[in-house]
């Protein structure tokens, strides 16, 4: 069961920090919710640098980022 991180409406760089905190807590299966393109780009760059896979689903201006390793 993926851990859900809801970072919708959070301004830069909070979505990345929330993702980082989850990863630092040894979560390896995450679903991060965000609502800006910038957050998607920043989180994608960050988790890739940490060796995670990421897929992005867009729905009505909101994004679900599935992150796992």
């Amino acid at each position, binding site marked *: 069961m993926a851990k859900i991180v809801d970072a919708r*409406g959070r301004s830069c760089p*909070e979505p*990345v920090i929330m993702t980082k905190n989850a990863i630092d807590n040894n979560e390896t299966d995450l679903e991060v919710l965000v609502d*800006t393109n910038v957050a998607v*780009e920043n989180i994608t760059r960050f988790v890739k640098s940490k060796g995670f896979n990421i897929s992005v689903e867009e729905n009505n201006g909101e994004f679900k980022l599935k992150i796992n390793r």
Partner: protein
Amino acid sequence: MADKRKMFVYGGIIGLIGAILVKFGNPGNMGICIACFWRDITGALGLHRAAVVQYIRPEIIGIIFGSFIVSYLTGDFKVRGGSSPLIRFVLGFFLMIGALVFLGCPLRMLLRIGNGDLNAIVGLLGYVFGIFVGVQFLKKGYTLGRSIEQSKIVGFIFPIFAVVLLIFLIVKPAFILFSEEGPGSMAAPVILSLVLGAVVGIVLQRSRICTAGGFRDAILIKDYHFLWGLIGILVFNLIGNLVLNFGSFKISFEGQPIAHTNHIWNFLGMTLVGLCSVLLGGCPIRQTILASQGDGDAGVTVLGLIAGAAFSHNFGLASSGTGSTTNGQIAVIIGIIAVLIIAYSVVAGAKNRSKAKEVVNNG
């Protein structure tokens, strides 16, 4: 790697434009300065009466149009707001006071370095120190809370403000003040400033380059993506100045245009700017870009910058080429203390709320 090269080139465009605008008439080492330009607009609107820094800077109008249009076309335009607007206003207010004690926003700081002004390196050290302190609060859970969707009209307020400014610039009604001497009277031709401003707006909107973000991400998550943009600004501005403005290129502390040599206050002024920028989630130029793409909270931040500029000149806080003022020094100290108190209170509040939530969840 391709990403980093892209950032480097994006930054390079900004650096070159900085050199070009000086060549065509903007004040020394001030091809682009978001703090100075909003301050000049504040003066032109009569909100402060420092006669030497009053002009409706077309670059700002161009930046707003550029960011608005390109974000609208690419889907980045999203109308949001409601994330601690009053705190953002206050942070914008103190940010501007720090910038005007140093004499420039972080972007001008880079452009000053790019023309040999060593005082700006002192400013840079202060800026990075302020960012480092701000990052400690981020690590402890600092947050300004969620923004929510707002009525679409909110997103049009800044573009409309830019249209009104453009009309004032062209029509020059009697109630709009234009400097006849000093930095406010030095300007590149309107069309050139407007067009290059729009290019800056488009490049920064697309690249998301932020002078605070570059250092913040390097410190916080060891991500050097945006830092490459800042290096691009610096390198290309240096090259641009050596080619276009060689006569004014000089590596020194003394005798730099619109700069002073009070090291402590250059450092602390930019410490305040760095701290505020991190707590706001972006530097003044990033806030201006965001305000133009529907972010109502960034819009409130820019209003804070404008208010800060007005008070800076009305209360004699802003420095000049002869040095910083006592009032300005006191204001920077008050600003740093006030911002630290805000950041500390926000962190404490966030902790209490998450504890309360745990009690509810477990209870």
